[in-house]
């Protein structure tokens, strides 16, 4: 009886778990590298606390039957939307955006939890609809589920955080089986809208949209962050300048080196090898999780894993591209590694859900 309620831990996937924990440890290490002794000292300790909180949430998610979560996913989704609506009206601005809830000296971004809830609801949607070719009604449902939190966060206004909801849309359309013709139509429509927008809007309007999307862009002078971050990454060379010896990072040229730019710090201090280590750990985590998705017991589980993977993948690629100027800076942190409690804790919660699906592959329910 006990065995059935708590299946043996043999089924815990050690590759996913190991990659996740390694990345978090790397994060704590480099948060301490850039913040100790300065204005931010003590952040490494905080990050450690959040990692432990995240691990707790992860094991809770493993032990709890994710099928129950799927069943109540609509309720969970709605509940996590409440703080977003609240923030929109009553939120205090921190760093110009109203996306934080403060509890004592800790701050929390409720949108991070909403991401997990949205993933659950999408998985539940695909659990019950299994059409080979996606119907228009399903597309509309998917769109609504993703766009509501997207817009709420976008209006905070935190474009970067809002953008992290978009991979869910792509995931759902791709794996849900949107017909090829629909894909072509979609791409054309987006290109057309963007093109028309570009010609119709006046320059100052574009600039205004730019400032709205990225309010910090001009505070430090255009291109400052990217230039400094590129110098940091490039000067790291093959093996790096050594832990805590990065001139760029230790001199604090980088403005938010322990949060969004932590990969640049790793690149400067541990060089190309360090970057490869980080990329390999993420690749290992994602590829393994996706192969677990293939063999998952039910469609809900498949889509739950895929949804979480899509968000992680998106954040990693966008963040890593930002460091070397392949994409504009948008304020998306490197999951598990960047300093930031809510991001780390919910990333672990996501990993917990991936493990939970695998954990119950052979369980009878």
């Amino acid at each position, binding site marked *: 009886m006990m065995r059935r309620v708590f299946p043996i831990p043999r089924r815990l996937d050690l590759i996913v778990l190991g990659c996740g924990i390694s990345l978090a440890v790397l994060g704590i290490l480099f948060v301490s590298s850039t913040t100790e002794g300065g204005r931010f000292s003590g952040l490494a300790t905080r990050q450690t606390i959040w990692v432990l909180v995240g691990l707790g949430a992860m094991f809770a998610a493993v032990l709890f039957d994710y099928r129950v979560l799927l069943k109540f996913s609509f309720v969970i989704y709605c509940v996590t939307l409440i703080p977003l609506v609240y923030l929109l009206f009553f939120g205090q601005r921190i760093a110009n955006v109203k996306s934080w809830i403060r509890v004592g000296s800790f701050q929390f971004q409720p949108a991070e939890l909403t991401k997990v809830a949205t993933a659950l609801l999408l998985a539940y949607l695909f659990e019950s609809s299994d059409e080979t070719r996606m119907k228009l009604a399903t597309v509309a449902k998917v769109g609504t589920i993703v766009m509501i939190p997207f817009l709420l966060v976008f209006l905070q206004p935190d474009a970067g955080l809002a953008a992290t909801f978009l991979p869910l849309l792509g995931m759902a359309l791709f794996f849900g089986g949107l017909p090829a013709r629909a894909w072509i139509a979609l791409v054309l429509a987006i290109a057309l809208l963007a093109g028309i927008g570009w010609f119709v809007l006046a320059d100052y309007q574009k600039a205004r949209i730019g400032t709205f999307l990225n309010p910090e862009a001009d505070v430090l002078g255009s291109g400052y962050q990217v230039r400094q971050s590129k*110098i940091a990454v490039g000067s790291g060379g*093959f093996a790096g300048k050594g832990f805590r010896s990065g001139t760029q990072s230790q001199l604090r040229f980088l403005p938010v080196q322990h949060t969004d730019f932590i990969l640049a710090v790793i690149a400067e201090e541990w060089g190309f090898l360090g970057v490869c280590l980080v990329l390999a750990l993420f690749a290992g985590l994602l590829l393994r999780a996706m192969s677990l998705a293939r063999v998952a017991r039910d469609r809900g589980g498949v889509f739950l894993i895929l949804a979480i993977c899509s968000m992680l*993948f998106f954040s990693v690629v966008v963040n890593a591209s930002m460091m070397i100027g392949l994409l504009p800076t948008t304020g998306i942190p490197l999951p598990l590694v960047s300093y930031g409690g809510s991001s780390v804790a919910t990333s672990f919660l996501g990993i917990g859900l991936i493990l939970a699906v695998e954990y119950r592959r052979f369980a009878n329910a």
Partner: protein
Amino acid sequence: MLKVRENRRELSSRIEIARMAVGGSFAVLAIAYWYVQIVQGGHYFDLSENNRIRSVKLTAPRGYVLDRKGSVLVENEPAYSLQLYRRESKSLESSVEFAVRLLGLPEDQVRARVARGRRYPEFVPIPIAENLTLEEVAEVEARAPEHPEFAVSISQRRLYKRGGSAAHVLGYLAEATPDQIRASANEYRMGDWMGQKGIESSYEKLLSGTNGEKRVIVDSHAREIAEESRIESRPGQNLFLTLDRDLQEIAEESFADKVGSAVALDPKTGQILALVSSPSYDPNWFTRRVTSEEWSGLLNDENKPLQNRAIQNMYSPGSVFKIFLAYGALALNEVDPNARVFCPGYATFYGRTFHCHRKGGHGWVDLRNAIKLSCDVYFYNLGRRLGVDRISEIAHAFGFGEPTGLDLAHEKAGLVPSEEWARTKRGARWYPSETISLAIGQGPLLMTPLQVARAVSALIEGGRLPTPHLFLASQDPKTGVRLRYDSPPKKSLAIDPTRLSIVKNGMWAVVNEPGGTAFGSRVPGIEAGGKTGTVQVVGRESVVRAGADRHLLEDHAWFTAFAPIDDPKIVVVVFVEHGGHGSAAAAPIARRLLARYFGIPLPPAPGEPGFQRASSRPATAPPARKAVSP
């Protein structure tokens, strides 16, 4: 069931495609990083080495200090200081050498500064010296090609416009000490200025504002080629003090080279109109380069000019205490104001003879006249009736024995004796004869001049004890928003107005009736009340033995006054160390303050040419009382 399997197969193949896409993306990323880090690595490494970013502090202008009428007491003037960017130095040795030769500073001082600066990031400059001359500035700029690591920054130096005037109120600014930097949790950096005394220290937060910072890129000749970032500074608030500059300067002028202190305040609000401690010092002196000889000279001056005598020196109140005793006895219903006591010039208690300051005695005196004449015998009797603990209770009700709460640091509490104090703190029991001398303000009873001013305010206001303060308002120089001070007076011993008027009338008589101890200090046109006090420094025997400097054996002089009698607007307390009798040394200063406050031109004062003596009292110093010892 079959359909599900069909779907699953298609889903599986999509997942395979996605896995390849994910793997491909990571490979592309790795190649991109390889390109930046390996192919272009050398280029970026050079860039990082030449990343000559300098952090330049944008000093927030410190708020001005103004008097209550808006006349500027403290402002800022530009000053040049020398900064070292150690990252750009070819060799720190030659940099130190250059600074030592240029400025003629001791080498170890420069080295110590460089060493302390290592705690901060390399692009943060190390302050080497302040207040450079224009010649030195020119020299630094001329040598920029060889020594690009040095920069001259224009900072602001505090300027105390009136020199030593109100120095003890204003305090001074000096470089933050290592201890202060640590205590501020790195809010202050080496080379930052910090208020050290007076209101510069009390209102440091308000005055200092918040410094800004800009980061600039410089070329190899230390020329600024681009600004990377900028955080603007927020200027400090302008501070309006309750001081009245005219009154303050008249008081200081009146002190001349006398040693002592004076306080003038508004008895209703506790606003301090003037606060003098003499001798004074020039706070400007701390913002220039101070040598250690100058510093020790100031510290070792036997007149202790750095000490704020109005709040840090404690004295016996002498006869000034009689008014508080009279008030207290009336408020506690312990005395009949009309009952008369016969003063033959002395009285005997507990087998000892206590003299009145008037050898021939005052004859029959009631309470009012006892105040007017400052009759010791009357108060000996009153003191015996009350007992030490009642007297102590009265003194506490007037705020003695505790700091007044003035917005300056290091205020002394004073001392109020009681039987318990004698037993526990002094370790020798209280003798009844001590109570007799306590009644005329002698013995272990100590108070600061400010405490006396506050107590007199409470007395004439019928028991409302104000909190003395210097902060009138502050004003944000940008927004113009003002902050005001608000502190309601505390309740003290309440008294019936008719009884209060007896005490006030006695104090009026002191100044306005022939025979009053300060009759000569009347200001025509002002209905003022007052009380003199004289504190014996040492017994007559030691005078003879000491012989040396007769001045130091002179009595201390107290005088307190308030005006107008019906609705007092100002209370003045003057204390002159070794000034002789209160009426001769202290009262003329108070008189000039009152005259200036009410805008009345003053006839010549005692001692000045043209003064006609109106009093019949002999001008010789009163005979010293017998020292009372247990």
